[in-house]
């Protein structure tokens, strides 16, 4: 063994090298997105137009917010299939609070978030205490939420036309030119980023995903923290529901199925591993943007819809493969 001082010096050198490399990686993570953007800008004169970019961002917002929540669950090595219809249930309940019960705007919005948290809480309890596989627990919740949305709404949309200002939540522009929905998405991403990397919730999510047993043996109350993590994820589902409702100025009870797959896809394209332990919020945001940009660009180019599917599939393969090459051999 070397003397302590040399060791430290060497250690620090290594650390710096390491830090720089990580930064580089994060910057490069944009590459896929940038290439896609560049391609479409070249291919269509309408693409790189603020109105269109705004459209892309707006299209990213709802799925993106859901994906933020899903990132936490996936970080633990779990999966959340209930984000799509759960979001719908939150929309519907927001509708009940605001349009049917006439509660104040703030209360209604908080209520929507609370329903999201409740969905997450139940998922967490089922996973932690009933020891259900996350796939099953959240699949069941997906169905229950879908059913309840229809039951509660009487299978009819709930309109917010009489709830003053609700639509401004998503459509208003606190920052001129940027719809609030996008602003909310970015703010939520910032919060999610800090939560994942700087709070116990995030740290334990990654730790559980990395080695659940070891985490438990290290004295972390894994069951309790899982409940917390799923609840946090549920809060994002709730937020997505509120934003969705505001964007449509209505709660559409039939919506939602299929969104979970898009959200999970955004997370995985962003480089988060479904095995857990590795997750970044920046990746998720980029993943969500890639999906929305692709869809938009192909539409702008008026590619027939059936070919759009084929193209999206192929581009996803290329984008993720490029990302894998970039990150080296680990697969």
């Amino acid at each position, binding site marked *: 063994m070397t003397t302590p001082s040399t060791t430290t010096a060497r250690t620090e050198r290594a650390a710096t090298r390491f830090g720089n490399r990580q930064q580089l990686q994060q910057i490069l993570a944009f590459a896929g997105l940038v290439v896609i953007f560049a391609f479409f800008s070249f291919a269509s004169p309408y693409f790189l137009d603020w109105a269109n970019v705004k459209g892309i961002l707006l299209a990213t917002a709802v799925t993106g917010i859901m994906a933020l929540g899903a990132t936490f669950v996936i970080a633990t090595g779990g999966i959340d299939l209930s984000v799509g219809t759960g979001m719908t249930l939150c929309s519907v309940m927001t509708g009940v609070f605001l349009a049917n019960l006439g509660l104040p705007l703030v209360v209604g919005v908080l209520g929507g978030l609370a329903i999201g948290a409740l969905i997450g809480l139940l998922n967490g309890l089922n996973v932690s205490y009933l020891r259900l596989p996350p796939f099953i627990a959240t699949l069941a919740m997906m169905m229950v939420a879908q059913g309840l949305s229809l039951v509660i709404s009487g299978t009819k949309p709930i309109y917010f036309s009489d709830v003053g200002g609700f639509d401004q939540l998503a459509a208003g522009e606190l920052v001129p030119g940027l719809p609030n929905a996008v602003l909310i998405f970015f703010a939520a991403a910032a919060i999610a980023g800090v939560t994942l990397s700087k*709070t116990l919730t995030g740290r334990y999510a990654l730790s559980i995903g990395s080695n659940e047993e070891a985490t438990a043996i290290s004295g972390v109350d894994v069951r309790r923290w899982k409940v917390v993590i799923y609840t946090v994820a549920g809060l994002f589902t709730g937020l997505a529901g509120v934003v969705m409702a505001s964007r449509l100025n209505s709660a559409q009870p039939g919506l939602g199925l299929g969104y979970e797959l898009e959200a999970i896809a955004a997370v995985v394209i962003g480089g988060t591993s479904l095995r857990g332990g590795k997750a970044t919020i920046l990746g998720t945001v980029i993943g969500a943007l890639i999906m929305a940009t692709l869809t938009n660009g192909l539409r702008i180019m008026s590619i027939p819809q059936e070919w759009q599917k084929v193209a999206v599939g192929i581009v996803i393969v290329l984008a993720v493969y490029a990302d894998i090459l970039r990150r080296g051999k680990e697969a």
Partner: protein
Amino acid sequence: MSDSPALLRATGVSKSFPGVRALDDVHLDLRHGEVLALVGENGAGKSTLLKLFSGIYRPDEGAMELDGAPMSPSGPRQANELGISVIHQEFHLMPDLTVAQNIFIGREPRRAGLIRDDELVRRAGVLFERLGIPLDPRQPVSHLSVAGQQMVEIAKALSFDARVLIMDEPTAALTETEVDTLFRIVRDFVSPRTGVIYVSHRMDEIKEISDRITVLRDGRYVDTLPTASTATREVIAAMVGRQLETGVRPGAASSGSAPGADGREVVLSVRGLTTRKLLRDVSFELHRGEILGFAGLMGAGRTEVARAVIGADRSTGAVEVQGRAVRIRNPADAVRNGIGYLSEDRKRYGLLLDQDVVRNVMLSALPGMTRAGFVRDADGRRVAAEMVDRLAIRTPSVTQTAKNLSGGNQQKVVLAKWLVRDCDVLIVDEPTRGIDVGAKDEIYGLLTSLAAQGKSIIVISSELPEVLRLADRVVVMCEGRVTGTLVGADATQHDIMELATRFGTDRSLVTTGDSA
């Protein structure tokens, strides 16, 4: 046993698992200021006993005391709070988290709810400085070698303000230099208010570090002996319940009969093996019926040579098998060419932990155990039962899940897998890691007889006596290069150490620094 208030005491503890009575009315007392060694054969119940102290298991019967007060920790967390710190045989690390994050998991310093990772790194740095561990706290644990991981576990245990330090085979993955460091740490730790329980299969270490020795056999308490006045032979006799001849076997690697390079056909020839990370122009030859030892300090590159040869890592250089140039791109190619590799990291590269002994033992040889495309499980069960007997694997049945076996028995299962495959060239990397003295001898005998049958074996080991005992010739490595080849019979530990430190310092414990 003495009646003075012990620091830590277990009286009449028992613990059963389905099909196994792991502990049966076991006693243990640890006095203040002592290092108590705990020994026993593989599966004797040592790890299980320690897990009672750390609260991972609850005893079925019996009681435990700390300083005369009854204790029954509800889990590792509470054990830590009571001042009991345990380094378990199996690592409990989160590979995706950094070293610092691993050490302080569950104890993160926070400000306004946010974790202060800089403070974590600082504390880890201070800890490493104190312990003399050359690790980067910011490195993910997945980048560490087994030895590196072991050091993290040690640092983690010492990061608590512990009064009782319990170590379950901490040196199994370490070479002698690190063992020296560890012993320094242990001696620093011991004071009149503290004590250490130390589990190891290395008798010389036990002699060196411990004050008394508690012996378990088949889950039962046998005796507690004072180290100073007890001969190693007696300890071993207490462990296995009969007299056992250990030491150099006549005819094994002894003098004149060493086949050496002369005359015998070369079965494996490696020329100019180079990897991006570490290896520089490594060349050696392996002859039919030869046991070739690889020695070196931790991180010298022995494992990397093996991984490069079997195609697990990318490398350049020429490999010839039986005189034919071959291109080995992955371990499957290697096995096809008759080269098998037993990894030093049994958990990661050795075992299907959640499958049973039969499936583990069959894995390498599966294609040979089929008829018309269908796997003959009866063969597998038969072969597994044979191996259980031959290697004395302690398990209630061949359908026991691998993760429920004791560490040493798991190691035997991995070895059994390669014995069943019956490769012409077998590379064994730390083959006796965690294996008890008696069984170690059996395995040495086994390897020697394989060589006598014309198989060729490469033994990578951090235990110099093991290398010296087995090898016909010893290749010594330092910093990724071969610094010399010694004829086993004439080599001494001193010669090897000199070659192994040819380039001065050792390397860091980080092994996969640039990928991953």
